[in-house]
């Protein structure tokens, strides 16, 4: 029962991410340049938020298929409210997400419907609601308010001293410049992950999420508030999806009722890649972030590879590559978890 150095799944994925980024930085000019980093982070942040919610849900032993269309619906809501300002837009979008989360929570904990089916239904419902609100077309956001700053701004760039861009600046300086140039959505995602990580590792609720995922009947008998925990997990997931939707609208200047298709699968993939057990009970918030980043980086690398003209991969290869990647990760995870099981038996 000695505990040596163990390669955890999230550590493995982190090293893959670091290696990929390093190789890419060496291979492509401007890969770590401000422009590229900003555009990648801007985009990945939305997925990262949705993935965080999914991480909570999967840790609790459930699944949430509604996140993609919820984000789409909320992008419409926030776009419609954007003329009243940033806060109403933000609050409206997040509230829409929370509402879907509450709906999921009720269906699952009160009507005892399987998460897979309950969230499938709310996926349809959110999609329909989004389309109805938007009148079947995208809804432009108002540029008169600060609403678009949320998605398009760079929160800390005002703190960025000029000298970090000077010739011959030292490593620390360029690193500082690099960090401070992060776009606002990235900061939102980082904040969400910090809070999420704290909640999982440092609060009773977080431990209950994992406990319920590890055995809901056992948790009930231990006196844990199982239904409340499950309910909250879906509310969190809905809220984060709503937030992602707000960023979507703000970033692209429009509420997009047909966006968000397949986001749930991207999120599931990030969570799984990040080393969270799909059956629940065991997982890592940080790993999920790494997983989301990794999937985003692969996407970017393919773009760069195309740009260099060495190969000509159509955009359609993206999904093939992603699928293959998911395949590899899932197979590795199944190996790891079957080893776990053997150890547990012995």
């Amino acid at each position, binding site marked *: *029962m000695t*505990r040596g150095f163990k390669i955890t799944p999230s550590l493995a994925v982190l090293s893959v991410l670091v290696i990929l980024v390093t190789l890419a930085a060496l291979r492509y000019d401007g890969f770590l340049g401000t422009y590229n980093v900003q555009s990648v982070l801007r985009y990945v942040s939305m997925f990262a938020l949705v993935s965080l919610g999914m991480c909570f849900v999967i840790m609790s032993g459930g699944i949430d298929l509604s996140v993609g269309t919820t984000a789409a619906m909320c992008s419409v809501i926030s776009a419609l409210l954007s003329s009243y300002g940033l806060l109403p837009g933000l609050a409206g979008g997040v509230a829409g997400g929370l509402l879907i989360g509450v709906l999921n929570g009720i269906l699952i904990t009160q009507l005892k419907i399987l998460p897979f089916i309950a969230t499938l239904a709310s996926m349809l419902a959110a999609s329909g609601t989004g389309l109805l609100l938007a009148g079947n077309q995208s809804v432009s956001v108002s540029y008169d308010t600060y609403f678009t700053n949320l998605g398009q701004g760079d929160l800390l760039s005002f703190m960025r001293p000029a000298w970090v861009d000077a010739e011959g600046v030292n490593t620390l300086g360029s690193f500082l410049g690099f960090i401070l140039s992060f776009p606002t959505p990235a900061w939102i995602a980082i904040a969400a992950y910090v809070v999420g990580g*704290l909640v999982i*590792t*440092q*609060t*009773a609720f977080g*431990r*209950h999420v*994992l*406990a319920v*995922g*590890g*055995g809901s*009947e*056992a*948790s*009930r*008998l*231990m*006196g*844990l*508030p199982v239904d409340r925990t499950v309910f909250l997990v879906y509310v969190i997931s809905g809220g984060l999806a709503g937030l992602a939707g707000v960023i979507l609208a703000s970033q692209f200047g429009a509420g997009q009722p047909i966006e968000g298709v397949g986001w749930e699968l991207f999120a599931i993939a990030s969570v799984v890649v990040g080393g969270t*057990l799909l059956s629940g*009970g*065991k997982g890592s918030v940080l790993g999920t972030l790494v997983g989301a980043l990794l999937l985003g980086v692969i996407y970017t690398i393919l773009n760069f590879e195309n740009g260099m003209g060495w190969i000509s991969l159509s955009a359609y290869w993206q999904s093939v590559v992603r699928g293959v990647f998911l395949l590899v990760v899932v197979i590795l995870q199944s190996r790891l978890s079957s080893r776990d099981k053997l*150890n*547990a038996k*012995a």
Partner: protein
Amino acid sequence: MIDTKPLLAMRDVDKVFGNAAALTAASLEVMPAEVMAVVGQNGAGKSTMIKILNGAYRRDAGTIEFDGKAWSAGSPQQAQRAGISTIFQEINLIAYRTVTENIFLGREIKRFGGLLDWKAMNAGARSILKRFNVDIDVTLPLGDFSTAIQQMVAIARAVSFEAKLVIMDEPTSSLDEAEVAVLLKTIHQLKAEGVAVIFVSHKLDELYEACDRVTVMRDGRTVAVAKMAEISKLQLVAAMLGRDLADVRARGATAFDDGNHAIGEELLDVKSLAVGRRVSDVSFNIRRGEIVGLAGLLGSGRTETARAVFAADQKSKGNIRFNNKDGDFRSPAQAIAAGMGYCSEDRKVQGIVPDMSVADNLTLALLPALSKSGMIDEAAQRRIVLKFIKDIGIKCSSPDQKIRELSGGNQQKVLLARWLCMNPKLLVLDEPTRGIDVGAKGEIQSLIGRFADEGLGVLMISSELEEIVEGADRVFVIRDGKIAAEMGKSEISENAIMQAMAHGAEQSN
């Protein structure tokens, strides 16, 4: 007991499920720091009683008083908070989470701002476990530890709730002898600390060792309450069964005949079998018409041996010959084709297909033989099913009734019939009568004997020694993955088997 007020008094408790009364004016009293045994057959109402007490169920009528106040718990959680902790039959902890979490889940120690104080919780977990002489790394997942340790963690959890009353629902069913001893010691310690214990168990010896008094339940009623020291085992059994003492004595403990089967030539020969880490060197053989008992403590490798013979798990070493041919099967399907059948110890998880009918469950293995180019011959299926229902007395409303609606005993009969209808040469039975009420138990035992008379070879694993002693023609005792002793019919006795289980081969001769 000195004249004090009882800690717990449940009186005239009624509970009805649908149309069936589960409890009728049942009562249960426990004094402070008393260990109270609760015994009864399956369906006697023990579990219902406990679940009403710990808040899992609501009572329909009756009064409950605990610690001088009226008691009514809405959930196991509330019960726990108020001083009644329950340790359930299957260990209900969470294997993926650490030992510390499993002890503190639900009432975590928090620092400022509601964040968890891991340091304090780990230290707390360590010190609680130390009270029971368990010294482990509490930051590892619980699943990394043995069943016994997990059980101790469950008890530590219950005790750490400052419980005044701990309910243990068959806590020893998955422990081996040494572990049981530790548990019993723990119970004594709880008692010494002033904690009362309700101890539910089917194993009479444990009751006499651990308990002060016993409450006997039958058909949802409390039929007897006595001091352990003043009631004999036979009286206890008689009270549980609701029979006269003389009747019980005449019947013997099991329904096996005297085992004069016509034993034929060799059927199964296992040489130097090794499976995983549990079984290292097991050799034994079975002849036609012979019931061979495989005795051993839990974890000795007896179930693993049975599963490897049936190819449910792959063996890592060894030689198996079956029916004078190579018996090195790759899958259960091959073993079945060669004439073997296997009833696993866990009927629910590995036996029945709950949503399927009795008929489909009974013929699950036989179906390919009942079909022509993939189509089922339903007339033939029905014929066979009806024959077995009648033949071995399966009580069901019709062959189309779903098997999950049957009682445990009848489910087990269907599972036996699943194999018997194949005309097997060898049946491997792992705990064939576990969790089955006494009546059905006897029927199943005599059934096994009957088919052995007709030439069936049987490998029978049982935790109940008397079942092995009375039922088996020959016994192999397995200990730590090795065969420790072989006994012919005349040498079989409870004492000899226990000797071999405890000490291995040397002393048993």
